[in-house]
């Protein structure tokens, strides 16, 4: 039996550039930035005054009662999943063949911190009974799973900046191994709050280009000075190829392979000499049955931090045939 193939049949997002995929994409292509000055109460003690909040507040598209039981990260997950599910044509499927994998790096940190404020100022009796379901990192996946009635499994990889990508990989394997025919997969984050901001600022990881927010995130630029903390959610509907074909679904792309490795080097810094990226690319290519010459786009991490970009660029330059191949496209008359 040949391996089950996995395709993308639905897209959903709420981002600093727009409340849905078409708006986000249009603004991205137009070169618009979602970075802006944050409210004073978040940044008053910091040397960082900027961030990238979502363009459309959940309250504009969500019922008030529903919102009060959901952490902001869960709100993003539901908004993006609803768009993706609708975009996929709200497929008919046995619930036992439907799964959800939605990642988050930090989870419901705003709920956690606000609830602790309530505990300190008003007492334990007034801590909401919804606190734990709101702060748990698997809350976004759980709420989407409940809304869709998914019964093939609801999972949440947590791996910092890689969490969302890892969710897509986990979903790929769920479909390949016949645990499910459709997975709603993606990532969410909602951590624009004084404490996570202070933590990232303390790491010296954030850009302090406060006078030009729209120019602060500038990966690979000589004058880059850190990343900008954003928020939002992005979700894909992943579907087994024959299943998608049989129902005449619109197919955006195929997920042909994945590769995952770890550096074993440092909690936050990339290994400057490491082969983690190279090995991950090699594994993904082998998994997909492709060669470096087949690659036409490489989506880098591109953090805009002084250290991260150097390590990544050097790495691609030194090790990645795919990158060298791509560079040919950047030269004229090729």
């Amino acid at each position, binding site marked *: 039996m040949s391996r089950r193939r996995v395709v993308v049949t639905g897209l959903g997002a709420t981002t600093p550039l727009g409340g849905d995929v078409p708006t986000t994409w249009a603004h991205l292509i137009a070169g618009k930035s979602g970075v802006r000055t944050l409210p004073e109460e978040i940044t008053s003690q910091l040397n960082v005054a900027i961030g990238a909040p979502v363009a459309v507040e959940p309250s504009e598209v969500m*019922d*008030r*009662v*529903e919102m*009060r*039981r959901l952490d902001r990260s869960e709100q993003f997950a539901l908004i993006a999943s609803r768009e993706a599910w609708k975009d996929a044509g709200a497929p008919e499927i046995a619930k036992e063949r439907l799964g959800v994998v939605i990642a988050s790096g930090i989870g419901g940190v705003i709920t956690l911190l606000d609830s602790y404020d309530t505990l300190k100022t008003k007492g334990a*009796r*007034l801590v*909401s*009974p*919804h606190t734990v*379901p709101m702060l748990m990192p698997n809350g976004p996946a759980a709420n989407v799973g409940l809304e869709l009635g998914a019964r093939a499994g609801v999972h949440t990889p947590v791996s910092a900046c890689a969490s969302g990508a890892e969710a897509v990989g986990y979903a790929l394997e769920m479909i390949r191994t016949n645990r499910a025919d459709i997975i709603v997969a993606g990532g969410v984050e909602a951590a624009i709050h004084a404490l996570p901001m202070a933590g990232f600022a303390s790491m010296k990881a954030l850009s302090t280009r406060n006078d030009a927010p729209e120019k602060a995130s500038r990966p690979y630029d000589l004058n880059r000075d850190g990343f900008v903390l954003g928020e939002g959610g992005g979700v894909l509907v992943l579907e087994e190829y024959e299943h998608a074909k049989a129902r005449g679904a619109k197919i955006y792309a195929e997920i042909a392979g994945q590769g995952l490795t770890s550096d074993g080097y440092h909690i936050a810094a990339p290994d400057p000499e490491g082969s983690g990226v190279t090995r991950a690319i090699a594994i993904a290519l082998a998994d997909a049955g492709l060669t470096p010459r087949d690659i036409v786009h490489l989506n880098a991490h591109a953090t805009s931090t002084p250290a991260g970009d150097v390590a990544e660029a050097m790495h691609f330059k030194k090790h990645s045939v795919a990158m060298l191949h791509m560079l040919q496209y950047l030269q004229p008359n090729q």
Partner: protein
Amino acid sequence: MALTHDAVLAGIKEIVEEVAGIPAASIEMGKNFTDDLDVDSLSMVEVVVAAEERFGVKIPDEQVTELKTVGDAVNFIVSQAK
């Protein structure tokens, strides 16, 4: 000042609408919180805490399980507020 049944019912309607999104018009003395109004166990905790704040009464946890209907809650609160 003693609370009237009508005043407590009006307050409960507002709280349940706020917490669970159930229209006040559908909340009546005879309605069961769980079976008729679909107020789940977590939301019921919120209703109880909000009612305690609003009416200045204590509703012990062991009492909460006895408050099956809106009327049960209204009568208990009125009896405690006297």
